């Protein structure tokens, strides 16, 4: 008998070990991919261990098959189809579904109390936490996804103090439901809790501006870990508690990293509303804010590139939206063949999520070691001939260093203003994601190249090829 009890326990321990090794391995480029596989294997082991411990009836197997078929196939299709630019939205969607799963488990236990005996206080508390966190994770993630996709706007009322009143009332409703729940497990308090928590998730996510959304997704990712751990308490699975706790802690660390990179405190992200999202800040919202703009053609820009020895590209999300990574890679290959030293400056929050830009450039086959992090590349700018900013804005704003009245003040930025010549490729003079005027555009060494990033890059390629750049070496 002892041997039979031991086996599932050993499988569980093995799963926890693999899970921990997986998370650790994900922190190194060389091991990350196998670590991801390791974590997936751990998940499979955990399921196996559970099935040994709790045999299923034939009817139960049928329902397992239905759920597995639906979720597995949809997950498979989504993972293969989704473009890399939409990664933040995708993580938000997956994350929301994880929250929903915890919510449904807690609902099942609360409504039909499977297993034997009356539920104790611990189980009731776990159900409350699982429902509350699960519902917030789900509705919050879906709103975050909708905002990133541009499906949902930021309504005006959410930018007034009214939102605090609304959210506080919702929180009070949650609390009331939670307190009344033990007396009536399957009745009104449960539904009050479900509805109020879901609305609260919407209420706290809706006011947050798009620029801060990665922080929210990361935080919600942490919540889904908490929801999983709470579900672990509900069904009495220690493995679930460990894994949930690990993911919860991971999400918190990552959230903190992102806040630091953006010079935003978590409190101001969560309660400060959209940073200039609804109303222009300091009159910088529209084109009227700029007075000393120099614009130039692709031809002039190509001439400068042809003469340069050292070129740094600063890619931003605009580049990815224009699907111009591949054109950029082609341009940099051409310049490299011409003997130009080409690197890419990656701001920690370039793209829509930390590390997002690295993924997008990797997709376009940009060699890993050409991607320079902010601290490495900043001392290099004074000896850089040409900087080309592609669809990045706030992360190159020199006001963040010099103007203490700027909302960006204190945020670490790429010091491209130190370079000899700066070209900014941009569709118009509209404000950046944070809605703030960029002092870089008015500097004497800066010229604007107006146009879609992909069109401009292709124009540059044509110009450079007609000048005969890159031909000799290639032949």
């Amino acid at each position, binding site marked *: 008998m002892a041997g039979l009890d031991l086996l599932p326990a050993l499988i569980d321990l093995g799963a926890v070990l693999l899970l921990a090794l997986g998370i650790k391995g994900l922190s190194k480029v060389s091991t990350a991919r196998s670590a991801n596989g390791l974590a997936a294997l751990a998940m499979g082991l955990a399921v196996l261990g559970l099935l040994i411990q709790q045999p299923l009836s034939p009817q139960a197997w049928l329902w397992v098959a239905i759920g597995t078929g639906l979720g597995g196939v949809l997950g498979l299709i989504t993972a293969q189809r989704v473009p890399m630019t939409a990664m933040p939205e995708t*993580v938000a969607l997956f994350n929301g579904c994880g929250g929903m799963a915890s919510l449904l488990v807690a609902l099942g236990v609360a409504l039909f109390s*499977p297993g034997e005996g009356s539920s104790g206080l611990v189980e009731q508390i776990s159900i409350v936490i699982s429902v509350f966190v699960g519902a917030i994770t789900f509705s919050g993630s879906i709103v975050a996804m909708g905002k990133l996709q541009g499906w949902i706007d930021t309504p005006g009322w959410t930018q007034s103090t009214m939102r605090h009143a609304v959210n506080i009332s919702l929180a009070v409703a949650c609390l009331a439901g939670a307190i009344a729940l033990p007396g009536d497990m399957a009745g009104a308090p449960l539904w009050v809790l479900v509805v109020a928590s879901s609305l609260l998730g919407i209420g706290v996510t809706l006011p947050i501006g798009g620029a801060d959304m990665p922080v929210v997704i990361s935080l919600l990712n942490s919540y889904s870990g908490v929801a999983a751990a709470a579900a672990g308490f509900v069904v009495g699975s220690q493995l679930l508690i460990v894994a949930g706790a690990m993911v919860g802690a991971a999400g918190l660390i990552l959230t903190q990293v992102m806040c630091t990179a953006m010079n935003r405190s978590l409190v101001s992200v969560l309660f400060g509303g959209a940073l200039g999202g609804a109303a222009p800040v300091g009159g910088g919202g529209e084109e009227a804010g700029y007075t000393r703009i120099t614009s130039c053609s692709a031809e002039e820009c190509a001439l400068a590139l042809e003469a340069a020895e050292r070129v740094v590209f600063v890619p931003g999300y605009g580049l990815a939206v224009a699907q111009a990574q591949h054109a950029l890679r082609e341009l940099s290959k051409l310049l490299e063949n011409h003997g130009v030293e080409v690197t890419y400056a990656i701001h920690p929050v370039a793209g829509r999520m930390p590390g997002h830009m690295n993924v997008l450039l990797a997709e376009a086959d940009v060699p890993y070691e050409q991607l320079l992090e902010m601290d490495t590349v900043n001392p290099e700018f004074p000896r850089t001939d040409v900087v080309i900013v592609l669809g990045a804005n706030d992360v190159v704003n020199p006001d963040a260093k010099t103007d203490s009245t700027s909302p960006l003040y204190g945020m670490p930025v790429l010091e491209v203003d130190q370079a000899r010549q700066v070209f900014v490729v941009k569709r118009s003079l509209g404000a950046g994601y944070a809605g703030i005027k960029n002092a870089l555009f008015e500097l004497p060494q800066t010229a604007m190249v107006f146009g879609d990033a992909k069109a401009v890059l292709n124009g540059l390629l044509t110009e450079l090829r007609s000048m005969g750049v890159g031909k000799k070496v290639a032949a």
Partner: protein
Amino acid sequence: MSALTQALWVLLLGSLLGLELIGKVPPTLHTPLMSGANAISGITVLASLTLIAQANDQLPLLVLGSLSLGFALFNVVGGFLVTDRMLAMFSRKSPRTGGTR
């Protein structure tokens, strides 16, 4: 040690482990890590399966459990695959650049 205290210890140690494991990640890997960690949080599949196993063939519980399993597996399968897609793009050039250097 009661089951509750034991579970609380597990919670505490798991959290501490998570903090330690994830403290030192290069920014390049933050997006894949977030997506990978997200896939792991889909471990709620265990809760869904437990719900189905303890349902005693009551239909509402089976349906709820199955739904929950579907959501969790969407998270797990999608999460791991999409993370792999991202990481595959990093690793496919590591050997090549290693060769040219």
